[in-house]
């Protein structure tokens, strides 16, 4: 369960947002919307523990967490707007490497199945350099599936995804919430989730 108490962020002297309070229970997704430059990515990075709020606190499982807290790092799957792929490595190697980095043993079968599930089985052995933006995004989706983490942070997850990819993402988020996971997503795309699961938050 994720809570924010009186959260504030500033860029230089200007406040991006102040006094932000919310609570996301297991099985819920916080959908962050707002115009460009209102601090969506900043908020997501704070919740992920990558940057320090200028005021207020973040609680994970009822405990106050500082940036890079161990408890958050053990639970989070962060999908930022950068795909974290290495051009030199193949799709399969990239996925296996990211899964291993998250501390999970990269079982070959699980990696291949995850790539099949995002329709990348034919691109498995291609270097990431030649993949399209959408295909790179799909590797990120496969990563979310393999990791099985309980706290997803998704920054503009539908960017570059086609209709089938967006559907796949919506299905994955729904399954994740069904299992009692927590998610935070900055997106304007309707994910087709039931109202009870969605906590909307508009910045700016």
């Amino acid at each position: 369960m994720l809570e924010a108490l009186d959260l504030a962020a500033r860029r230089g002297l200007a406040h991006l947002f102040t006094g932000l309070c919310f609570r996301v229970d297991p099985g819920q997704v916080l959908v962050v919307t707002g115009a460009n430059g209102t601090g969506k990515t900043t908020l997501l990075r704070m919740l992920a523990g990558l940057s320090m709020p200028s005021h207020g606190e973040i609680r994970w499982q009822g405990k106050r967490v500082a940036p890079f807290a161990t408890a958050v790092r053990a639970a989070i799957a962060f999908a930022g707007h950068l795909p974290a792929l290495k051009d030199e490595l193949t799709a399969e190697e990239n996925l296996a490497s990211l899964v291993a980095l998250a501390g999970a043993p990269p079982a070959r079968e699980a990696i291949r199945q995850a790539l099949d599930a995002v329709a990348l089985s034919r691109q498995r052995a291609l270097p990431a350099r030649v993949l399209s933006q959408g295909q790179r995004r799909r590797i990120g989706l496969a990563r979310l599936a393999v990791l099985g983490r309980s706290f997803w942070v998704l920054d503009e997850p539908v960017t570059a995804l086609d209709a089938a990819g967006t559907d796949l993402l919506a299905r994955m988020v729904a399954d994740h919430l069904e299992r009692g996971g927590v998610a935070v997503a900055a997106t304007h795309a309707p994910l087709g989730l039931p109202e009870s699961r969605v906590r909307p938050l508009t910045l700016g």
Partner: protein
Amino acid sequence: MSAPNAAPNAAAGAILPGVRWSLVRDLKIALRSRAELGVQLLFYVIVVSLFPLATTPERTLLATMGPGVLWVAALLASLLSLPRLFAGDHADGTLEQIALSPYPLEALVSGKILAHWLTTGLPVAVLAPLLGIQYAMDAESLIVLAAALLVGTPILSLLGAIGAALTLGLRAGGSLLALLILPLYVPVLIFGAGSVDAVRAGLGAGANLSLLGAGLLVAVVGAPFAAAAAVRIALD
């Protein structure tokens, strides 16, 4: 760990698997982009070979300045490859994933530093005796030179990693890195080049090599923490 709901994660606090992850990955990427490695080594070979051509063919003079030239070139070769140590991971978002990994960031950074040394420092140390022949250095000097480089070049990678992490995301990062790090390299240069001079003076290289070794130990213990802290600042 104490929270009842926290998912058990074997990776939390595991140092060696963390070092291994980044070491294996960085070496794999280095092997796939061999051309870049070759360019660095070629740079080293060319810089070292320019001095005898530009100065003098006189053997005693060459033997005197040889160790210094080889060390300065090693410093420059190390510096040339340092900006890429974290910049690539920073640009493609991997650094965020590294910082959010359950493995300790210090361990992951150590693996990257080790990979940097294996791909730049080690080849430089291995090539040095060969290149030293151009400077009419005797066998004992060549052996001591290689030994000093073997102990000294890891210090260059370790200190350089701090500078590389501190200059992440800055516009003039590369040149700032040189300004920041080259002064810190000075003691390594003095004791490293000094070890060969000591041998030629009949004093033995023991004292210089011991000091380099001590410096290496301090750097191994301290640099990963400093570099990891700088990486966290760069991400904030």
